[in-house]
């Protein structure tokens, strides 16, 4: 997120924009990452229960991720323009759930929406908070394409490192000690 942990509001939908999937890009993604016949071969795909080519679920997810990166970038620019310092996000530890609900066919337009459903300070990384995000993808007929529950890190603005913790962290910079301390955490 481009917001500080303290500023993240729960259950406020954040639109990420839309993407129209062409047959050419569905086939190209399938050939590179998911070469099952219903993602790469229109003639064979017509024999499947889908009745034609459909996008790999992973393709729809990766495009959703790209939309999120772009939307958060734009939000960062907007905040700077308002004279505010944007927050800092960290790498994601993972995805709790991903449910593929309905297939995406050539020409379908998918709209993505991000919602933070919960947050708490991290127990393991001082100064950072965990964000629990929902990402929902919906097609032009209003059908859910996928629902995801993602985890992300966001930095605390008002965090003041306790002195004991600061000393401990400084000690981890000493090579041998750092290794020993690292084994403990």
């Amino acid at each position, binding site marked *: 997120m481009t917001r500080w942990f303290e500023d993240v509001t729960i259950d406020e939908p954040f639109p990420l924009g839309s993407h129209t999937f062409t047959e050419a890009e569905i086939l190209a993604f399938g050939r590179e990452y998911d*070469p099952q016949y219903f993602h790469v071969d229109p003639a064979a795909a017509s024999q499947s229960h889908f009745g034609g080519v459909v996008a790999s*679920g992973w393709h729809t997810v*990766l495009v959703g991720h790209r939309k999120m990166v772009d939307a958060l970038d734009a939000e960062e620019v907007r905040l700077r323009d308002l004279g505010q310092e944007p927050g800092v996000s960290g790498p994601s530890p*993972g995805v709790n759930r991903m449910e*593929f*609900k309905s297939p995406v066919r050539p020409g379908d337009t998918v709209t993505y929406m991000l919602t933070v459903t919960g947050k708490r300070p991290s127990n393991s990384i001082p100064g950072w908070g965990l964000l629990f995000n929902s990402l929902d993808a919906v097609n032009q007929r209003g059908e859910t394409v996928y629902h995801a529950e993602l985890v992300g890190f966001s930095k605390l603005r008002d965090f003041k490192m306790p002195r004991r913790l600061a000393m401990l962290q400084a000690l981890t910079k000493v090579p041998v000690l750092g290794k020993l301390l690292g084994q403990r955490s």
Partner: protein
Amino acid sequence: MNPITADRRHFEDLVVGETVNLGSVKVTREMILSFAREFDPLPFHLDEAAAKRSLLGGLASSGWQTAALTLRLLGDGFLNRIAAAGGLGFSDLKWKKPVMKGDTIWATATVAELRRSRHHPQWGIVGIDLAVRNQRGQPVMTMRLANLVEARDPETGMQAQVVQPYDVEQGGGQ
């Protein structure tokens, strides 16, 4: 019967506990940059200097790239050899360690769960545990996938429905 998948292994042929070695792939600098430009344009996946200054300490692949490369290994090594009928999704995807430029990742797939679809007697659902490691044997990613597989005998599925009231699957697969 679906002519495309007729000769492949079907739901009834799979066994819980079966593990398939999916092989490996080397993640080059060019692969990292090209994937990041398309799907994850963050500085530490795009720019070696910025990556050195980041928490990761060097050019690392997007976690989603590790997932996509694993998906390719899974397709070639398993899904294209069974009568797979689309993915239902996944759970508990954990990125445990960054994949750095020049790392080789290798993956295994283990059949963790088999159950008949409650709503669609022509399908079963296979739960697949994916484990991905780097060349030093360190875990980099794990997840549990759920995939539809065609059953040879839909009748068995109709009977199985009675004893599997916990099946809540609703999706149509991707």
